[in-house]
């Protein structure tokens, strides 16, 4: 391998990328738009969920309950309606996701038997939101019920400890506020790296075949390893740049905690980039068409990284055979690594296993890509 030839290829690649609006968009604009789109768009926290209430009793007690809803961070009361059909209409119009109905005999039953029911009408078209909303609604009601119980015990002259001898107090580590953004954005960096990396290199060899420049290139003494590294190195640098953008946006804009070291992030990101860049390059060598190679690059990088890496959807909740499949998804290891670096401040020693997997993957794909390129036309 000759440095001079490798450099000639790399310089040419930089000039071509710089003059190609499509490549520039992928390299520079995509990370930004993806970061903001997904950073804001993928949000599993429910806050200020619009609800409407139908208080059929209108008593002090029922109004207290609704105040609990109003005070909760999870809900925002947008309508107080006077009839059932109005709830239905509001849910149909998607003005609200939940309807809370307090029965006309609410206080009466609570005072008589100590229990009363409240009706929650949920918009089940989004069952995930509905489930979470129901959970929140239940916790608001149970909070209210505790208050009621407390004041009842007060009147009886007893204290809570006598009734509830044990309580669970949970404490969450690493993402103390359980903000889903803190959990999603580090994984999002992996998604963006996978998307951008493979897209750029999937164009690079195919472009030369399509434009006819490859015929001349293969007639020169250039070696296939020089072509490969000459083409990968500029995109590796672009990948570093994009990773830096993502890091800055994650930490400064979305205020995701970054507890690890930059060195660990740099080393592991380089490994991951080596995998995705080589996948794109390999596809470009084999398919020889820019459109074909970039489409397939999307399928083999973005899809598994979004769905099977544990970036949003937890792997341990997948069916067991899908869990087995995720072991061959290289992004799984990087998502594990990058979340651990961001949130736990993990160093290389704690991440040895996933790093080892990435190394094996990177070596395998680079070797495959180096072998795939042939300096022949037949």
């Amino acid at each position, binding site marked *: 391998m000759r440095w001079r030839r490798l450099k000639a290829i790399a310089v040419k690649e930089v000039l071509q990328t710089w003059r190609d609006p499509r490549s520039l968009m992928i390299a520079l604009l995509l990370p930004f738009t993806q970061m903001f789109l997904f950073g804001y768009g993928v949000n599993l926290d429910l806050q200020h969920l619009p609800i409407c209430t139908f208080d059929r009793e209108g008593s002090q007690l029922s109004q207290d309950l609704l105040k609990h809803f109003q005070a909760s961070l999870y809900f925002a009361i947008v309508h107080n309606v006077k009839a059932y059909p109005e709830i239905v209409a509001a849910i149909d119009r998607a003005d609200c996701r939940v309807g809370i109905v307090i029965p006309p005999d609410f206080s009466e039953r609570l005072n008589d038997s100590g229990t009363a029911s409240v009706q929650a009408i949920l918009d089940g078209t989004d069952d995930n939101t509905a489930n979470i909303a129901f959970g929140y609604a239940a916790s608001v009601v149970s909070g209210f019920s505790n208050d009621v119980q407390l004041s009842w015990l007060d009147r009886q002259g007893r204290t809570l400890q006598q009734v509830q001898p044990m309580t669970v107090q949970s404490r969450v580590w690493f993402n103390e506020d359980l903000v889903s953004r803190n959990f999603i954005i580090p994984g999002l960096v992996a998604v963006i790296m996978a998307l951008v990396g493979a897209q750029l290199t999937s164009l690079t060899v195919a472009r030369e075949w399509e434009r006819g420049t490859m015929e001349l290139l293969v*007639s020169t003494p250039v070696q296939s390893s020089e072509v490969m590294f000459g083409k990968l190195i500029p995109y590796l640098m672009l990948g570093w740049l994009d990773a830096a953008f993502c890091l800055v946006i994650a930490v400064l804009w979305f205020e995701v905690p970054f507890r690890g070291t930059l060195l660990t992030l740099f080393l592991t990101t380089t490994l991951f980039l080596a995998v995705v860049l080589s996948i794109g390059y390999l596809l470009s060598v084999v398919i020889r068409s820019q459109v074909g190679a970039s489409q397939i690059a999307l399928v083999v990088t973005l899809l598994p990284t979004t769905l099977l890496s544990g970036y949003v959807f937890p792997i341990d909740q997948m069916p067991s055979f899908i869990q087995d499949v995720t072991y061959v998804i290289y992004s799984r290891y990087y998502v594990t690594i990058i979340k651990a670096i961001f949130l736990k401040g993990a160093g290389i020693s704690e991440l040895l296993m996933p790093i080892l997997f990435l190394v094996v993957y990177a070596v395998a794909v680079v070797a495959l890509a180096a072998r795939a390129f042939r*300096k022949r036309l037949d």
Partner: protein
Amino acid sequence: MSGSETADAQIVVDNLVKRFGSFVAVDHVSFRVGHGEIMGFLGPNGAGKSTIIRTLCGLLRPSAGRVWVAGIDVARDPERVREHIGYMSQKFSLYRDLSVEENLRFFGGIYRVPRAELPERMRFAIDMAGLGGREKTLVATLAGGWQQRLALGCAVLHRPPILFLDEPTSGVEPTSRRRFWDLIHTLAADGVTVLVSTHYMDEAEYCDRAALINQGRLIAIGSPEELKHTALGGELLLLECEALGPTLAALRQAPGVIDSSVFGNAIHVLVDNAERSLRELPAYLEQRSLRPSRLQRIDPSLEDVFVRLIAADMVKRSEAA
């Protein structure tokens, strides 16, 4: 000059066969090109010219037969051959989104032209292509003739002793074509061996030797003079007349006439013996009420030779089939 006899042949092709599936693109072709010789490849599109050149550059593997370039067996060691050759492919293959200078610097790097020498070699290529003052121009915006001359400049940047030029003048306007051939002659005078293909028959005149290729087979090879005087297999008459069609039909039956074909508004008649036909043909045509306004002996052009040879080759093939 006859390069086939020279001992230091730079290119040796021995019974080359190239098949793509069941299609035979090159069919047992053999020839040699001597040091500093300009060998022209002529033939219609799809004759197999590009396939032979690509095989010589090590881009295609021969199905049978052997090929040596600069004394190196191309099939065995294509990488070493590539150090010795410059190649201009049929399709323009410089980087259109790079400037003149950037393309030259790129190929200078790829061929590892010594750094100290590179500025002077780039200057040479720019001057040769007539691109002085346009060093920063993107190649995409250059006219065809300039692009082709720059491609030649990139191909000779590393001073290769052997040049393969695949239809370098196709799609280039006539004055640029002429200028391009002048460049080829300058390079050959410096000892560069050039194998150049073209589908412009008149360009064969610029070559030391020309090989005529049709449907994958070499049907004639020699200097332009040799081809004109021996390959035709007869002598040529020019006939001008009013009724082209009936005259052509009559000539085909006439004694001593081997072949006749329309060239523009005249007929070229290939005969065994020009003097006898000049005496006998007017009477023969007169019997059929045909009166040529002009009948004279002419020197055959290479185009006559090639048209005749390709037609004869087609007849031979259809008879064989």
